[in-house]
């Protein structure tokens, strides 16, 4: 499994880089880090269409600014035309720089304002319970996003109401828009905090497919708790390091783009 997904991750990264160049839009570091997790979810783990057993699984990108990777996944899985990626972040585009359900109805929700995906997921989970159906509901959050107070209201509500089909993944790339995540939260442990809210927690290397697969397979046995995976991530291109907040905003230059593609040994899908 690994080598195929590794190739796919390289291709998706190359595609995100091209989208940033073509759309003249940054937020690259917000997309590149979680590509392995996304590839595993969309290609291996999520049920992408409803069947006789029940509805499709739900995926919510709570950190909406990191959406170029999600668009690539949707295009690669046939939900949107591959050509539409060339319109990313352009005026009037269906693929906005923050996901808008009004423009792209296949999204579970619009996002872009941080700290809301988990709460929205709680409503979807509650609706499923009231309707007598169930699916996996996966929410991808940023580590910086965990600063938001609303997240902690949702963590409490989800545990209190035993919405145990919710799985929160935190893309822990260690850097926020203009600061270091750990420093901003005073070095407090995200895993300990979430565990204290009664959630099942795991911390993994979010760029390692073996660890990702192992973490998700462990979830199958956890029936009585909502679940969180703290995925430590890197951007996957050597000169784009997570120590620098630069890549939150920057668009790669010609040289950087060429060297990244060479390093990835991959071509964009459009």
């Amino acid at each position, binding site marked *: 499994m690994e080598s195929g997904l590794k190739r796919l991750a390289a291709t998706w990264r190359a595609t995100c880089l091209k989208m940033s160049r073509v759309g003249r839009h940054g937020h690259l570091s917000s997309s590149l880090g979680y590509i392995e997790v996304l590839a595993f979810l969309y290609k291996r783990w999520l049920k992408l269409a409803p069947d006789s057993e029940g509805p499709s699984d739900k995926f919510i990108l709570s950190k909406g600014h990191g959406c170029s990777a999600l668009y690539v996944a949707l295009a690669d899985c046939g939900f949107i035309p591959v050509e539409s990626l060339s319109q990313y972040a352009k005026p009037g585009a269906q693929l906005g720089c923050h996901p808008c359900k*009004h423009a792209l109805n296949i999204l*579970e929700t619009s996002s872009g*304002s941080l700290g809301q995906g*988990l*709460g929205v997921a709680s*409503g979807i989970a509650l*609706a499923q319970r*009231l309707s007598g159906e169930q699916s996996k509901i996966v929410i991808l959050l940023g580590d910086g996003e965990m600063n938001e107070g609303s997240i902690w*209201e949702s963590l409490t509500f989800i545990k209190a109401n035993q919405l145990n089909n919710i799985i929160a993944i935190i893309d822990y790339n260690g850097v926020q828009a203009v600061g270091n995540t750990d420093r901003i939260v005073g070095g407090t442990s995200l895993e300990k905090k979430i565990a204290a809210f009664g959630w099942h927690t795991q911390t993994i290397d979010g760029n390692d497919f073996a660890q990702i697969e192992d973490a998700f397979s462990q979830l199958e046995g956890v029936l009585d708790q909502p679940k969180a995976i703290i995925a430590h991530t890197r951007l996957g291109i050597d000169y784009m390091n997570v120590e620098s907040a630069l890549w939150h905003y920057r668009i790669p230059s010609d040289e950087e783009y060429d060297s990244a593609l060479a390093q990835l040994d991959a071509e964009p899908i459009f």
Partner: protein
Amino acid sequence: MRRAFSDTLVEVADVNDKMVFLTGDLGFEVFTELEKKHPTKYINAGIAEAQLAMCATGLALSGFRPVIYSIASFMTGRAFELIRTGINYQQLPVLIIGAGGGYTYANSGVTHHAAEDLGLMQLMPGMQIINPGSPSEVRELMLQFFEQDKPAYMRVGRFGEPEYTAKDPIILGKARLVSEAKKQVSKPSVALLSTGDTVISCIEANKLLKEQGFDVTHYQYHSLSPFDVKTLEQVLSNYDHVIVVEDHFPIGGLYSQVSSFHAGSNSSAKLTRLGPPHELLFGEPSIAQLREQFSYDVSGIVSTCMALQR
């Protein structure tokens, strides 16, 4: 109005299995019947207004019709951005309830004052604003809300407000003619425009005025959005004086709507506003004291109208 609200929730839940009610830990023994009859449709989410709005977003995205409930200042102010982004941006049919809007909780201090609730909600394009003044208006407007699929904010006052009779039925988005002055009886001609529970003071004032031979027309604006411009246009062209009586800041409520429309019209009607000023009100006054101080109680309305005759 609170009782009418909780009774109507049960009435809706009996027939609409998509209704879900979430309270922000408010309503001691008010929702017992709903909880008893429809236990899965009553959820106490805790003192977490943001979570109320986000959870309602997810429920509505899944086809449900959530109603979220907290004290007006917290429901609108604390959760504003969650309402704006989750509910209103996506135009989801959530009913947002602010209990005790305006100065209902005047003596609880500034934390509990909600004289900006209607304004905050009204700033969002696509949000319906409902400000009922009687138990029947609460019930009727709630039932009409469930017949359509846009978001709405509704202010719900206290317990025990009286019913009143009016010439017009209760229709969401339409001003309601409460009583009409006999033509040519009183000079100058005056129209009172009430919203929310100021309807009651206006009715009382109107009775006293009649006893003194002063006949005044009275409309109740229980809906601020959609706003009944057509009726306002007629009022502004048919009356010499139009008096708005509101329990809200002068910005963002009924007076804002009326005065901005008036500014763009050819009407020569003179506008007067009775209501609290755009000021922080310290000192924990009672609601009765406040209404007296700022002349939006019965005697303030009467004396304002009488002064117009001199």
